[in-house]
């Protein structure tokens, strides 16, 4: 009886429709926010920021984006890496062309640009589904990487073909460039991830979200209740692209600092984010966080075990790491296809009954 719903009555429909209708969940959520905003920034160091927290937060945004498209609207995409690249190159062009404008403007703007591009690549979804759509988005992935490599305008004609983020600050705090402090990187990503999660949650609980899910579950029935499939799919591509673009912009400007498109935004990124969404749970915002945490922490954890604990050579450990994470993903997909979010729901159902299982 640690976890309970009884005694928790909703007296209005608005209350019943809250993000966390159960008080206990709500308190836990506030506690997480308090730790994230008020504790971690004061104790974080470079290692934890770069190895764990910053990539986790940024991938969580990308996973939320892909989850909206795939988990909520049922449209498969293998273009996430390329779409993140759009965000990255958009923010690069913006921050170099308009150095005086705040990053708080540039990053969402890069998201909007990505939203437009992704919507364009979403057009085939009006005709094709499933496997064929996946192949079409895969083509988008390769096309975008090729484009950013091929057209020097995108990387400002730099000799290396790389893009690198100049130093920019927000209210005097440096958030990009080599002089950025760990806590500042963490904070800027935390702010964006919090906003992204709130927006995604709001969209998915209202009428837009129901249109997406209707299309996902049965497009014929969706049409019969008045959903325009074209609008529903394209809004999903747009919103998804917005978040993925923001993730790409932060990944390049705050996390990497310098990037080469094929290396940083290749097909492996597309799969990585897709795994996060599948492992975390399709159609769940919480699952997007869980999946991102799992995929970011797993290699860190394995590396610590293999190299730190067992003292194996790093290259052997790196290869083993691939095998183990690949294996775990397969095991996971077989044992719990609904992801970590479902495990969490089941755990809560158990807790509600504990210690009387019947």
């Amino acid at each position, binding site marked *: 009886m640690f976890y309970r719903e009884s005694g928790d009555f909703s007296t*209005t*429909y*608005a209350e019943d*429709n809250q993000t966390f209708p159960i008080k206990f969940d709500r308190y836990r959520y506030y506690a997480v926010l308090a730790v994230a905003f008020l504790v971690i920034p004061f104790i974080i160091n470079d290692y934890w920021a770069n190895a764990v927290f910053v990539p986790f937060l940024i991938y969580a945004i990308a996973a939320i984006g892909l989850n909206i498209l795939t988990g909520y609207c049922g449209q498969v995409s293998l273009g996430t890496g390329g779409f993140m690249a759009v965000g990255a190159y958009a923010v690069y062009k913006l921050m170099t062309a308009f150095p005086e404008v705040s990053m708080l403007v540039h990053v969402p703007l890069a998201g909007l640009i990505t939203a437009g591009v992704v919507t364009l690549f979403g057009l085939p979804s009006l005709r094709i589904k499933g496997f064929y759509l996946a192949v079409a988005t895969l083509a988008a992935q390769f096309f975008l990487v090729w484009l950013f490599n091929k057209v020097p305008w995108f990387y400002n004609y730099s000799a290396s073909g790389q893009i690198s983020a100049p130093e920019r600050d927000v209210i005097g705090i440096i958030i990009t460039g080599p002089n950025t402090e760990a806590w500042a990187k963490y904070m800027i990503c935390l702010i964006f991830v919090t906003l992204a999660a709130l*927006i995604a949650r*709001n*969209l998915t*609980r*209202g*009428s*837009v979200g*129901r*249109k997406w*899910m*209707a299309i*996902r*579950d*049965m497009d*014929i*029935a*969706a*049409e*019969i*209740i*008045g*959903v*325009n*499939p074209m609008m529903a799919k394209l*809004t999903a591509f747009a919103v998804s692209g917005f978040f993925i673009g923001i993730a790409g912009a932060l990944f390049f400007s705050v996390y990497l600092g310098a990037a080469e498109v094929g290396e940083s935004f290749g097909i492996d990124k597309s799969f990585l984010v897709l795994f996060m969404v599948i492992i975390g749970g399709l*159609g769940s915002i919480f699952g997007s966080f869980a999946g991102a945490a799992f995929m970011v922490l797993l290699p860190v954890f394995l590396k610590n075990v293999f190299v730190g604990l067992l003292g194996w050579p790093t290259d052997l450990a790196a290869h083993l790491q691939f095998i183990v994470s690949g294996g775990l993903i397969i095991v996971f997909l077989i044992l719990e296809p609904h992801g970590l979010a479902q495990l969490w729901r089941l755990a809560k159902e158990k807790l509600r009954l504990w210690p009387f299982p019947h």
Partner: protein
Amino acid sequence: MNALTGGNYTTADGRKIGNTMMEMKNITLRFGGVVAIKDISFDINEGEIRAIIGPNGAGKSSMLNVISGFYNPQEGEVWFHGKKRPPMRPYQVARQGIARTFQNIALFEGMSVLDNVMTGRLTHMKAGMLSQMIWKGKAEAEETANREIVEKIIDFLEIQAIRKTPVGRLPYGLKKRVELARALAAEPKLLLLDEPMAGMNVEEKEDMSRFILSMNDEFGTTIALIEHDMGVVMDLSDRVVVMDYGKKIGDGTPDDVRNNQEVIDAYLGVAHD
């Protein structure tokens, strides 16, 4: 043609039937070589319960699919509220106030009963993306207002106890009821029901008949329904269209139809020439 065409009559049980709401004129629908509907005309009046009956493969579902915009007939015209309707997509038809259920249930299996019924309100929900993003003002108010309407329908159809259950877990009879709730949530002017009682036991059929009658009576919903159970059809409907092999072989009150020789032949399986 029969005496009741054109509407404006009073039924035996004293309900007033209004003007013609929908008129199908000389509809022909082909699938390649198969002619599913052959030159059929009939009308539906405001406030009426109109049944479409006929043996398997007669073209009944195809007719509903023409009304709801899934198929565009090769020949013929659809008139709605006195206007000729251009070819339309199903979602455009829905926005004109026509809702339906399917012969094989078409619910959103991944969503709860409540969410499924809420999707029925989508044509009434107008809050923009931005308002929904911040969930303040219009979006929140609209959600609550529509939830109230949906809860009334949930009460009406007696599915309160399962409102948070995922639809995938429900037995067949309840799924049919949830699908009806979703269609009703749209507050349609015209409700199309494709075999709402197929596969139900006597008790479930009685419940469903009761719901259909009170929908028509309390909300004034015009209903067109396909049904195989003759007893149900004769009890519920004001007028009946009979189809066989894509053709209309009868049209009139249940009594007219019951005494029509061609209809009797079709149901007894008299050989076609």
